């Protein structure tokens, strides 16, 4: 017996999309002999993989690459056209939070309904009820109809029920990680807890930071086929190559550089707290000398706004880079406000006349903070006086 809890063998799934929608009996009376025309859409094609017990598997891929379909096939919401899937243990799909929530029902009724949908018995929900209400911070609103809740309150309630679900295998869709940063932080805490408990998890996300942080193994889907499988780092790299295409001025050196971030305990991380100590470490593995290079790290936000940059230009002389090595910049105080940030790398010659290599968004990281509500990129250092 293997310890595989999920085995997906040769699974293919195609959808028939009618050119003209025929969903009424009337259509069959009006045009009884007209043959319905379909376009077929291949969502999954010969997908093969296994998941071992206790493994945290990530699935990445562009929109429409078949990630969600794959989750739905595994949780037997869709039937595959061919191939087989075997699942051992109780599987809980989290494709959405608060499934079955009814706006007309009270918070309390919704807890019991949603709990039942997640496979909890009434006794289990009853014994966990107080924890759920406490965690969602909705004491006093228990008898309020859900339609009177803000969307934030609804998500909080849904999430509080979700963490009480008891299964062996969890399917987590990226929708879990939407919401404000403190909510994301809660989600990540939940992931850590599940991982610690030895649960098997399949996680679909567009957030490469989260994927790298949690996943033991990652699968890359592209047009319904598995295009890569392996360690998070390698597959994410492959994915960014697929997404952004090859760099226009490829010097062939891109693969020779990797960037990693470490905290003060020298642990590799991609999620930090404000004001932490961070080391940006550039690893290189070169066959050819780079004489007197300059290195720039450009930190940007999602929308491309440059937040800051770090450069060796006129501040730090490097005589040459050769073979394997590492060069680091120590940030004493990561003075950034909560958000997701990206680092791009540029390596160029002494006089800035020739670019050796330029890699957009070589690394991303997230910053959390206990302080909420501040706007902007960074926090001014200083104090209030009166």
């Amino acid at each position, binding site marked *: 017996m293997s310890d595989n809890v999920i085995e997906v063998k040769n699974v293919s799934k195609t959808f028939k999309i009618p050119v003209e929608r025929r969903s009424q*009996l009337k259509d069959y009376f009006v045009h009884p002999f007209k043959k319905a025309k379909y376009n077929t859409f291949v969502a999954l094609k010969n997908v093969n993989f296994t998941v071992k017990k206790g493994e945290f598997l990530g699935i990445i891929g562009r929109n429409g690459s078949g990630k969600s379909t794959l989750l739905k096939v595994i949780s037997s919401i869709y039937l595959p056209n061919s191939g087989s899937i075997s699942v051992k243990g109780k599987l809980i799909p989290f494709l959405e939070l608060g499934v079955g929530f009814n706006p007309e029902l009270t918070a309390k009724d919704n807890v019991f309904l949603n709990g039942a949908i997640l496979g909890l018995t009434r006794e289990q929900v009853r014994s966990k009820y107080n924890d759920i209400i406490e965690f969602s911070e909705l004491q006093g609103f228990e008898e309020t109809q859900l339609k009177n809740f803000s969307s934030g309150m609804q998500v909080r309630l849904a999430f509080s029920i979700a963490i009480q679900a008891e299964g062996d295998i969890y399917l987590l869709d990226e929708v879990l990680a939407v919401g404000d940063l403190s909510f994301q932080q809660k989600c990540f805490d939940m992931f850590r807890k599940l991982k610690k408990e030895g649960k098997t998890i399949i996680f679909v996300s567009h957030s490469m930071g989260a994927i790298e942080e949690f996943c033991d193994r990652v699968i890359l889907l592209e047009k319904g086929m598995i295009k890569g499988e392996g360690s998070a780092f390698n597959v994410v790299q492959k994915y960014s190559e697929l997404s952004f295409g090859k760099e226009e001025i490829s010097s062939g050196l891109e693969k020779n550089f990797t960037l990693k971030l470490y905290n003060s305990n020298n642990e590799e991380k991609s999620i930090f707290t404000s004001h932490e100590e961070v080391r940006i470490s550039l690893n290189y593995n070169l066959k050819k000398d780079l004489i007197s290079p300059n290195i720039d790290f450009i930190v940007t936000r999602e929308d491309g706004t440059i937040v800051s940059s770090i450069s060796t230009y006129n501040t730090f002389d490097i005589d040459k880079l050769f073979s394997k090595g590492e060069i680091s910049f120590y940030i004493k105080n990561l003075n950034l406000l909560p958000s997701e940030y990206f680092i791009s790398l540029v390596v160029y010659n002494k006089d800035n006349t020739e670019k050796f290599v330029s890699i957009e968004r070589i690394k991303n990281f997230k910053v959390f903070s206990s302080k909420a509500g501040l706007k902007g990129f960074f926090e001014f250092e200083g104090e209030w006086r009166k």
Partner: protein
Amino acid sequence: MNKTDKDLLFEFVKTDFTLRYNNSILGFLWVVIKPLLTFTVMYIVFSILLGNTVKYYALYLLLGTIMYTFFQEITINGLNSLLQKKDMMLKVNFKRYLAVIGSTLIALINLLFNLVVIIIFFAFNRILPSFLDILIFFFGIIILYILGLAISFFISILHVIFRDLQHIWDIFMLVLFYLTPIVYPITLIKGKAFYLIDANPLTHIFNFTREALIYNKFESVYSTLIIFVISLILLYISYRFFSSKILKIAENF
């Protein structure tokens, strides 16, 4: 059905129940008022038309109306059961038949409320049915439920594929109402129309229960027993049909 499934079914029924009864002051009353109003209108119109041909006509009509409303509710709720829960079905893989059963059970609860009205009418007419008569009535209700559930398993699937089935079903139920001896006694029907009405299983079930409860007579016993067996077979077939189609139905949502 294990504990989790039972609890989920309970939650489905509780949700329907709460939505129906809690959120409007008249929610509870509507359940009783609707068949009562139908009854009143029918009573006024048909007691004039029919004269005094049926003994205890009010009871005859009321019992028929409430039983028909029960059957109608089962099938209409069953018809919509899958479409109503489509969002849930696209996200979680609970046992799908629970959605159908859950939606039909609410009709049973509504019937219980209407039983109160029936009891009042019986008391008013000073009729006390025997224990056997009451058993026969509940047996009739069970047959109606099984038949309704069997139909629900068929049409819930068909409704996902043919979205206009709702309109067709409404008309069908209206026609069936007049093809069942509810407002008129079957003895009044002569000629070819009789065969049509006689072919309707509801005719026999209604005749069986109503004759026993009101007149303490046993009629249509064999035909009702045959219908009971046929309903069970139909339930088996329709459940098989449901199980085979349900796996692929999510794509039609």
